[in-house]
């Protein structure tokens, strides 16, 4: 089995957001870090993440949002995952996920209340997200 032991991630940029560059960089970083990556690209609907995660047996979903509407776009995603049988799947979100200057602690609290396991502020290095994924998926050291 070619991806034996590898953890599978589903990633993409949510909503009506077409920022494609960061998406490619993240895909590269996750692949390098040893993950099996299913990249859905830009303008991804919640349902697409979920369908892809079911089919690929994904271990986590990583949502990017760069245009400030992330909070609206992510609403209800945890509930949809529960409904689709992906109970407890780690959900991570990062980018410019809200509009304007807000204290990130508040933003993070709101996203956690929506059922996200981790939320990352603008300018987060890929390594930070990879570290969080390793922790959430109980991966020791090099994957």
């Amino acid at each position, binding site marked *: *089995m070619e991806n034996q032991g590898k953890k599978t991630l589903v990633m993409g940029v949510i909503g*009506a957001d077409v920022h494609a560059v960061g998406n490619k960089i993240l895909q590269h970083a996750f692949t390098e870090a040893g993950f099996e990556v299913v990249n859905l*690209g830009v*303008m991804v609907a919640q349902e697409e993440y979920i369908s892809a995660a079911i*089919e*690929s047996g994904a271990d986590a979903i990583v949502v990017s949002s760069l*245009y400030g509407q992330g909070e609206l776009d992510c609403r209800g995603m945890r509930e949809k995952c529960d409904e689709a049988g992906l109970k407890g799947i780690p959900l991570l979100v990062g980018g410019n996920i809200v509009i304007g200057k807000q204290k990130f602690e508040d933003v993070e609290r709101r996203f956690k209340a929506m059922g996200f396991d981790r939320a990352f502020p603008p300018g987060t290095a890929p390594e930070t997200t990879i570290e969080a994924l390793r922790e959430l998926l109980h991966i020791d050291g090099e994957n």
Partner: protein
Amino acid sequence: MKTVLLIDFGSTYTKLTAVDIDRECILGTAAAYTTIETDINDGLEAGLKILQSKIGTLDFNECYACSSAAGGLRMITSGLVPDLTGEAARLASLGAGAKVIKVYSFELTEDDVEEIRRIKPDIFLLVGGTDGGNTECILHNAEVLANMKPDFPIVLAGNRSAAKKCQEILSGYEVYVCPNVMPKFGELNIEPAQKQIREIFLNRIIQAKGLSRASELLSDIMMPTPSAVLQAVELLSGGCEDESGIGELVAVDVGGATTDIYSIADGMPEHMNTVYKGLPEPYAKRTVEGDIGMRYSIQGIVDSAGIDRICELSGLSEDVATALIQDLKLNPDKVPENDKEMENLDFALASCAVEEAVTRHAGTISESYTLLGKVLVQEGKNLTNVKNIVVTGGSLIHSQRIYHITENALYSLSNPSSLRPKIVDVWADKTYILAAMGLLSSYYPKTALKIMKKELEYHGHSK
């Protein structure tokens, strides 16, 4: 003179085409009623007699056949997510020339088992999960199928991590393992499963359907008719060796019960600012509209187009049109001959059938506004740049107004989001030879191509 006989055992007619290989031409064609209930050879012999009366007695060097008799190749598929492996399984089966009776998604239930028993498929295509992905669903479904003691062959083309286990669960039954129809997310690999389906059709179904009695005449090869047509239009589009094809095309076959649409085209977005959504579709794509047909599925046309539109196109009053439609439902064998009213009705029905079926086959484009401006979102194939439409099927090729019927397959300002062809040449398969040429192309591709280019009749260019 080297001659080949090509036979198409259709649901109603057995169609024969005699070809002179050396001179690369059609010697003659004939048709007789298919006699699948009694002995398939009766209809075949009747057809041969007609053919002989036209071209004299010939000793054919080779003989090949395709068939859609006895219901064609009836398949059931089951996948995981409807839009993903469910759709991949459907595309694979359609491309193999099957009639897809039912598509299941997620785990099969007790009720589904009842339904499968009732349908009695010729082949079951079991898929689900990308390679290394979900295994629970396909294992569960294998278990359900094993419990119902299937008397039909099962093609397994799902998550390879579960293939071995599925095979064990289904041991003792007829199971064929193929590479996954969707090895990675969004990546289709449907050809191996299609090849397997055709092989099973060849080895098993033909006998079960009483077609083997005709086989002593046949040299080799038997395939479902739609598969032969697909092979023909692929060759016509792409060419062979130094003989060029006509380029990307759409083919339309409006039948009595169903309407088949084929597209041989890339169909990916034209512009940089277009985002593609959904599964990438196969270069050679076939769809079948089971509810759109000129006779048995006449109600489907009325439902989708509306009686007003049919009246408008036919110039008939609603009372007359409704009465004629009722009559055709009861007497599906009727053809217009010299009945002007019925001819007008058939013109309207065919126009609506073509419009609806091509619209369903083609992709769509929609505008979406983002903070970075307008973005176009494309789903399915973009056929706007396809330059050829080939029409076949009795109701179209016998019409006096082929071009005007075909116009309904084109891009229209009244439905601008439908990515149908814009400027095309219209070709008609007047001699009804596409399936025969698909068969011939397995052995003499260049000859088949040359004959098609010679025989297809030019019916105009859209502005």
